[in-house]
């Protein structure tokens, strides 16, 4: 099998196989055998040289002529004289294109359905920017013209590439900023999970069960490819229900008590008589007592029915003490008539779960006669202790307990002057639905208002529902919500409660609808259909979402939304301060989890079949790279430190894997520690076992894939895909059974279909040959160690991965910074970059260059760039 065909990195779109396949036959008739042979021998290094030559060319152009200045040029005028760049194209560039490309790519032949004659007029080049960019990449990489055609000299190749590139760059950046279209996009799985976490403070991750998100432009947040299927919508509905089941619990489904203590269940310590119509008539000094078993901590209502002495008027105090004699409640009962009619009063008391004994004392004291507001004295709730109760011994109390089945004979005639305090019953109900310890933690904050109820029927649910839903919808929809948006939701709650649903389940339905609403699931930037211009600046509130989904892969928090609503995010200084705050927040770890992981292809690590103690090797290996990324970001280190760092992060299993010592005392709470690798060949991500493993086959490493990975993710120039029909390494005739991989590859490269690309890839990949397919350092006597050498153009030779990494960091800094910036912008916008974006990228790089392309600076610059701040609704 061809290495490319199985490559896990195969996502290049530069050259579809169809194009490569048909490129050669075009010249079949035109080129003779001799010519072909000559071309092959002289062309081996062409691609490589040109690639690197042009990298530095771009860098120097940009440095010499800042983008800002170029962007300020006036709108193009058809009648105005040609600029020198346009003139240069007309004089020289076009001639080269004609000479080497137009033979096949003309209106008549249209090889690979490409007609390059449209690039002739430099004034019209902006109309064909995509085509021109494609051509530039093919020419620079050396993939075109094909090796068996007439090929340009390296100098000509560079001239053609740069001339066209310059022309395109100018034509795009001379115009007003074109921020590029961002489609309404749905939340991906990570964003959905994070949004649920941030909305409700729960760690439940329902999106784990969603179908995988489609990937476009290297990331799974690409608006144009993310789609919604009926299956996914069903998952959304299920997830919403699972979430609301976790955040709201109907207290009626939880244990509660409604216990009545009267007659034989209301004990009396002291002398009393039981009345004919119920009720204990107690002597002065007697105490009624009962034991209540609270199923759960919470607020309980104590209702007491009784009556003070017959001759007194006004409210009288009935005090309730707990077992320690501490005053827990004061009831005020009044003698209403002379017919022994009960009065009642109720008080709420907080109880912990468990059995509690309470004593009720009819004090005989009129409420008017005491000052209840005093900070001292016997009537301070929860404080005052009454000796009479605190000094009771348990035996004495138990002796007064009515036995089960005991019957108290009611009496109709007794001395009501002596037995003058009446306690008929105590009812304990609770816990209250709004204050009990077994509710989900966020429920009280979420349900700030409850609907009133009669029995099990809730009513007037509209207003309380509205009060609860409005703040939630603001957070979920990431913007202020109008009353008329909340109202249908509140009406639904009202309707459902009328249908007999509890307020709690009705609120679950409303919140489920919030979580299924397109306002939650989609990031939509509204567009006025009557707007005159398609391009506009985003509002402060819209920017909040762009920032939070970029930096946190989640919804804005309260602080960000508050800033947004005060229109602060359109002010550069405030926006910058806010972005820095967000980067300090732990949620910015998602940049590592989502962005860096996808940039470096770490998600391809899944399903590794070796073991690392008890840990999943895929996540351990990926974690190392994410940690380095986070470190460089948090400390605003130059982005090149990602490839040159002489330190790394390991946990114990990884340290073992690397065969380096691990000092557990220096590890953080997750068991990871920063370690120096200065004495080892490992430098930056190119020395990370994750990167080295994901570019290998299960049983052997692949210099080709490693080289390709560097080209793609470090240098940002993905090689074109292999043409079909090219034999794989295994099928290439082998020199001998003992040939090294390098020797085999040399043979493989003799095939003209492979040579130009492999020359570039293999040379880079061999630099990492010191590491085996699992990223372990090979033994010194391993024959493969000798293969770990190479040369970059301009005599920049290197030996081993350490020198390769340091050389790349030192000499290709801008190129790497550009790759980082392109990836960041792609991720931040959720769309594929277009030629016009080149202008903004150059501008970002110029701004970050003086400080050495620090990673956090790049992130901030991305946020400050026109495509991030603006919206363009033109385009396809």
């Amino acid at each position, binding site marked *: 099998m061809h290495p490319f065909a199985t490559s896990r990195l195969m996502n290049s779109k530069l050259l579809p196989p169809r194009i490569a396949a048909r490129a050669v036959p075009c010249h079949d008739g035109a080129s003779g055998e001799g010519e072909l042979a000559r071309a092959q021998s002289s062309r081996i290094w062409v691609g490589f040289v040109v690639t690197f030559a042009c990298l530095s060319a771009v860098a120097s152009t940009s440095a010499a002529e800042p983008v800002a200045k170029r962007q300020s040029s006036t709108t193009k005028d058809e009648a105005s004289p040609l600029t020198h760049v346009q003139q240069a194209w007309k004089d020289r560039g076009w001639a080269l294109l004609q000479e080497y490309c137009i033979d096949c790519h003309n209106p008549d032949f249209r090889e690979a359905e490409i007609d390059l004659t449209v690039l002739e007029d430099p004034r019209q080049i902006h109309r064909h920017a995509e085509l021109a960019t494609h051509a530039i990449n093919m020419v620079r990489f050396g993939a075109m013209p094909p090796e068996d055609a007439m090929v340009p000299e390296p100098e000509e190749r560079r001239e053609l590439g740069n001339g066209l590139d310059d022309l395109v760059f100018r034509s795009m950046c001379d115009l007003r900023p074109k921020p590029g279209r961002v489609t309404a996009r749905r939340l991906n799985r990570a964003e959905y999970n994070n949004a649920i976490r941030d909305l409700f403070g729960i760690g439940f991750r329902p999106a784990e069960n969603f179908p995988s998100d489609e990937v476009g432009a290297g990331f799974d947040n690409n*608006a144009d490819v993310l789609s919604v299927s*009926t299956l996914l*919508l069903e998952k959304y509905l299920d997830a919403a229900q699972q979430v609301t089941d976790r955040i709201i619990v109907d207290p009626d489904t939880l244990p509660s008590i409604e216990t009545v203590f009267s007659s034989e269940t209301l004990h009396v310590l002291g002398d009393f008589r039981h009345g004919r119509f119920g009720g204990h008539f107690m002597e002065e000094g007697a105490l009624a007592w009962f034991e209540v078993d609270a199923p759960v901590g919470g607020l309980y209502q104590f209702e007491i029915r009784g009556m003070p002495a017959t001759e007194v008027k006004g409210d009288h105090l009935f005090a309730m003490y707990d077992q320690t004699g501490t005053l827990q409640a004061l009831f005020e009962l009044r003698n209403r008539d002379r017919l022994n009619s009960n009065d009642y009063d109720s008080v709420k008391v907080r109880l912990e779960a468990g059995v509690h004994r309470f004593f009720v004392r009819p004090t005989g004291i009129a409420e008017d006669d005491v000052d209840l507001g005093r900070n001292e004295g016997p009537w301070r709730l929860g404080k005052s202790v009454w000796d009479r109760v605190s000094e009771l011994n348990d035996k004495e109390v138990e002796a007064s307990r009515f036995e089960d089945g005991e019957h108290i004979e009611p009496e109709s005639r007794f001395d009501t002057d002596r037995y003058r305090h009446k306690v008929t019953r105590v009812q304990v109900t609770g816990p209250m639905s709004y204050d009990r310890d077994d509710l989900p933690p966020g429920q009280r904050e979420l349900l700030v208002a409850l609907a009133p109820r009669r029995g099990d029927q809730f009513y007037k649910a509209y207003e309380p529902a509205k009060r609860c839903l409005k703040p939630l919808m603001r957070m979920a929809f990431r913007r202020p919500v109008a009353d008329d948006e909340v109202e249908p939701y509140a009406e639904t709650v009202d309707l459902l409660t009328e249908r007999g649903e509890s307020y709690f389940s009705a609120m679950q339905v409303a919140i489920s609808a919030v979580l299924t*609403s397109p306002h939650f699931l989609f990031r*939509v930037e509204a567009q006025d259909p009557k707007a005159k211009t398609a391009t506009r600046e985003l509002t402060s509130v819209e920017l909040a979402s762009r920032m939070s989904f970029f930096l946190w892969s989640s919804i804005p928090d309260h602080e960000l939304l508050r800033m947004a609503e005060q229109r602060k995010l359109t002010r550069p200084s405030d926006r910058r301060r806010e972005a820095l705050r967000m980067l300090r927040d732990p949620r910015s770890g998602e940049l590592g989890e989502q962005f860096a992981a996808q940039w470096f292809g770490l998600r391809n690590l899944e399903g590794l079949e070796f073991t690392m103690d008890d840990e999943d090797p895929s996540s351990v290996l990926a974690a190392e790279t994410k940690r380095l990324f986070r470190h460089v970001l948090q400390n605003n280190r130059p982005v090149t430190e990602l490839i040159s760092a002489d330190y790394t992060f390991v946990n114990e299993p990884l340290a073992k894997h690397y065969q380096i010592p691990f000092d557990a005392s220096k590890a953080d709470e997750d068991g990871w520690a920063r370690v120096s690798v200065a004495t080892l060949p490992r430098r930056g991500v190119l020395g990370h076992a994750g990167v080295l493993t994901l570019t290998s086959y299960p049983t052997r490493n692949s210099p080709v894939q490693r080289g390709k990975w560097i080209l793609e993710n470090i240098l940002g120039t993905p090689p074109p895909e292999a043409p079909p029909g090219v034999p794989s390494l295994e099928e290439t005739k082998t020199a001998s059974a003992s040939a090294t991989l390098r020797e085999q590859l040399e043979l493989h490269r003799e095939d003209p279909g492979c040579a130009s690309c492999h020359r570039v890839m293999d040379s880079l990949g061999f630099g990492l040959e010191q590491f085996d397919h699992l990223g372990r350092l090979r033994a010194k006597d391993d024959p493969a160690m000798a293969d770990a050498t190479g040369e970059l153009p301009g005599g920049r030779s290197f030996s081993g991965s350490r020198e390769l990494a340091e050389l790349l960091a030192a000499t290709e800094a801008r190129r790497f910074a550009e790759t980082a910036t392109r990836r960041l912008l792609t991720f931040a916008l959720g769309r594929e970059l277009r030629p016009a974006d080149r202008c903004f990228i150059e501008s970002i790089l110029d701004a970050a260059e003086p400080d050495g392309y620090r990673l956090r600076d790049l992130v901030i610059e991305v946020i400050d760039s026109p495509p991030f701040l603006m919206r363009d609704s033109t385009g396809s």
Partner: protein
Amino acid sequence: MIDSPHSAKKHPLESARLSRRTVLRSGTIALGLPLLEAMTPASKSVYAAATSDEVKKSVRMACVFVPNGVIQDSWQPTGQERDWNLSKTLEPLAGVKQDINVIEGLAHDNGRSKKDGAGDHARSCATFLTSARPVKTSSNIRLGISVDQVAASALVDQCSLPSIELGLLGSRNAGSCDSGYSCAYSSNISWRSESQPMPKETVPRMAFERMFGTGDAAQQRRQRMLRQSILDLVREDTKRLLGRVGATDQRKLDEYFTSVREIERRIERVEQEDRASLPDIDIPYGRVEAFREHARLMFDLMVVGFQTETTRVATLMLDNAGGNRQYKEVGVNDAHHGLSHHRNKVDSVEKLRKIDHYLVEQFAYFVEKLKATPDGDGTLLDNSMVLYGSGLGDGNRHTHHDLPVILAGSAAGQIETGRYLRTEQETPMANLYLSMLDAMGTPAESFGDSTGPLAVLSS
């Protein structure tokens, strides 16, 4: 207190059967469900082909309770056993006069105060179907099994639902409602055991689900209803949003909208299939506030339950004991209980007559509906025994004798109807229950304070 044949030491097989039932009944509903579900097809088939002998014999029993007694002089018919005239209050029953018996002279001695003091309303309700004396307490309730539950427990294997207990007002089983009696006594007429009142279903929809949904089906129906509510909101949100976005965004949202519609259509389809498998009866969701509509829905449910033989035993409390409903729809703004202590004031008595008449009118609706429903060779009414009455005779004086009692239906020809039956005063109501249990095919040797079957009933 009671002596059901099934608890007597009779045949070993009998008691074995009972013990299994006891297990079933003491288990949770969920435990019983799979079995009940398995039985559904059998009862459905009866619904489809209602001609076999089996069906003729399957008698249904319903008991309807009204509180606060009646104005007796307007209740009592005139004439002789087979040659009699309906009273003013009973006029609404004219259309079914030949299908009912009005029984006079029955009493609940256990409803009387004796040494328990006040609480006649609680006792009138507690005794109504149990003929047992309630222990005066607000906490450790003790009464006796009710006649409907004796029948239901004997028939437990024969219907998907042994019995259904309905009411228009919820039960309160804690706290005390009448002079120291637990609220359980004044809000339940059906008692499964001496300490276990059967809570009433007051929401028609819930009763419907209990009768016709296996637990799962009901749950799924509710799920669909809730999901539809979500989709309604989501659809409106999407529509609004579609007007505010550009063409490309619209395409993305269309994808989503299409999925919303697709799921809605799916729910509609299931809903239609589900409806097709259920009796053709339209029961609204949630509570029904209007008394007449509420009562009639409950009667409709009982008819459908009987017709499909989903259950053969049903009870309905039109109000709880001492009920204070205001029957404004017949021009009575006073509370029923308060009014019942009329002290012979003319306008109060007149208002009570209106209420009595109005309540009988609702009952007549039920009887007529049963009569209009074919069952076997006859009508559902023919195969039923429907009791209507109050636990108090004279509400003003709280009397527990001469109770107002109507028994409609001939219990599949076992009871001659169209008669005005006057029994000796103080005949225990329990005697009627003994006879009814006999007619149900679930005979008991004695029940409550019974002294033997009700002689006047047998023709």
